[in-house]
């Protein structure tokens, strides 16, 4: 059996169900792989982990991956199981926010750490400065959860369709009391959860073959998870060492994740999505742009092609 170390972007949850399912159902073993899954967390930067040779492949969002590439960690996207973005901005309706135009002068919670670029791109498209001037918006670096919204410290907060949004609902809001803006719909969506490896390793045919088996088994896992959401949620829960997750929440998350997946494509990156992501990032502007020029060779179909 060949070893594969997989570094996740975040803590164990249904967002990564495919990988846990592939492991629990023996898909990896069937592909002659011994996969070790390392959960992430708020201060784990998967690119750093892979640059330090502590992982063979990582789950990362494309903005962060491209940023790393520009800073000397040559990440290459080998597969893109998530087709759509689940990120959105969720506002309390009582603030009177109905359209993006109403955001002016409001306080918005935003995730930083590489996740702020879609937001910045959106704001620069709307022409709102983000430095707290009254003509623009006031930005808070949102912590891990939606408390700022519940406690009225912010008018809007960032949420994922599959996670934080439901925490707002659990916090006592009914959907009609919320106004959501999906990044997909605002045209500033970027690609999320893709699989990335270091460029130089792709010259090794054996490694490409190993990754091909890995991607295939992972996509099998995603397929199974999509069809058996409740069982997948239970598998995720069994793998949660923190003991903090609840089954109800994970089931709901699995349901939402399923809508973002692209299992038919077998994880093949669609170039149009990639181009849109790069465009969005290049337009995010500011004093410290995440990428200053369009990257080259940041993705490859070599691995998905090798699957066949």
């Amino acid at each position, binding site marked *: 059996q060949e070893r594969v170390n997989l570094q996740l972007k975040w803590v164990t949850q249904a967002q990564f169900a495919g990988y846990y399912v592939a492991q629990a159902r023996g898909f990896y073993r069937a592909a002659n792989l011994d996969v070790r899954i390392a959960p992430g967390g*708020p*201060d784990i*930067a998967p*690119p*750093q982990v892979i*640059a*330090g040779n502590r992982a063979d492949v990582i789950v990362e969002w494309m903005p*962060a991956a491209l*940023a*790393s590439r520009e*800073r*000397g*960690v040559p990440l290459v996207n080998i597969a893109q199981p998530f087709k759509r973005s689940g990120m959105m901005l969720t506002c309390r309706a009582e603030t009177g926010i109905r359209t993006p135009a109403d955001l002016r002068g409001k306080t918005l919670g935003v995730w*930083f*750490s*590489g996740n*702020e670029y879609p937001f910045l791109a959106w704001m620069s498209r709307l022409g709102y400065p*983000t430095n*707290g001037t009254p003509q623009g918006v006031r*930005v*808070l*670096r*949102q*912590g*891990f*959860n939606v*408390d*700022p919204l519940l*406690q009225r*410290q912010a008018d809007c907060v960032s949420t994922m369709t599959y996670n934080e949004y439901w925490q707002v609902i659990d916090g006592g809001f009914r959907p009609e009391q919320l106004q959501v803006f999906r990044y997909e719909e605002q045209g500033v969506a970027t690609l999320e959860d893709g699989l990335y490896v270091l460029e130089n390793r792709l010259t090794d045919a054996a490694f490409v073959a190993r990754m091909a088996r890995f991607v295939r088994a992972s996509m099998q896992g995603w397929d199974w998870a999509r069809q058996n959401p409740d069982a997948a949620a239970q598998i995720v829960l069994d793998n949660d060492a923190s003991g903090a997750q609840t089954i109800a929440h994970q089931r709901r998350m699995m349901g939402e994740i399923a809508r973002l997946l692209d299992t038919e494509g077998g994880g093949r990156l669609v170039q149009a999505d990639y181009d849109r992501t790069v465009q969005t990032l290049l337009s995010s502007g500011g004093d*410290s742009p*995440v990428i200053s020029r369009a990257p080259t060779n940041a993705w490859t179909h070599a691995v998905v092609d090798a699957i066949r």
Partner: protein
Amino acid sequence: MRTGLLAAVVVLGFVLAIAGVHAPGEPGSLAWAGIALTAGLAAWLVKRLGDLPGQGWQALAAPLAFGATILALWEVLVVGFEVPMALMPAPSAIAARMASGAHLLWQDFVQTFLKAVLAGYAIGCGSGFLMALLADRVPFLRRGLLPIGNLVAALPVVGIAPIMVMWFGFDWPSKAAVVVAMTFFPMLVNTVAGLAAAGALERDLMRSYAAGHGQTLLLLRLPAALPFIFTALKVNAPLALIGAIVAEFFGSPTTGMGFRITTEAARLALDMVWAEIVVAAVVGSAFYGAMALIERRVTFWHPSVRG
């Protein structure tokens, strides 16, 4: 004199080494041998400087030489082995970034140090001190409050920071609150220990004057406790800075040293991360140094100062 010559050799060695690694082409094994030799000489230089008598610039020479050596080695190794910036930037890259990002660094310094740290440090040390006095004054409280004080004050930052953000909002007050929680306990413990440090005979003297509790405190026990209190003030100086920076991790406005460190780290802009770290280290040391300086002046009578 010999020291001066040695210093010149070391400086020349490092200048050559740095120029060498920056020049195109791989440094050969001869170059590495030269670098190792220079490093050895530098260690000897630091030792010599450390043994210099005197209090003025001589006292600064050794740490500066030590620091400069570390920096030079760092530069040579990082550039020489072509370590990616994402893992470890070279000092020259950090310096360049410090120059170009000076306004951001200043803004973060104001937000984190001038607002959160100073406020939190003052309140935290002050309340730890007052709590110790209170516990000392009322034996009932001493027995009741101290165990509970231990309990409350030993809470981990990671746990309280999100709660403080909930309570005090995103801006600096929540960071100050975390700093309060962090600095409180060292001050409490040290003040309590210090208040027990006055000699029995001196206490008897005050007793024979029927000096009130306050007078005994002010005239005898607090002066005797000062060495302990300053220990806490010194320990707390860098601690407060760490506390504020870590607290910014759990929600913040878009300025602050902790904000910058985490966001830039996630983008692998490690030059900026290290620039902030340099600022933190310098500020923390200066803060500590200020406390140490005050300590020397105030506790001039203590054997550890008198020598």
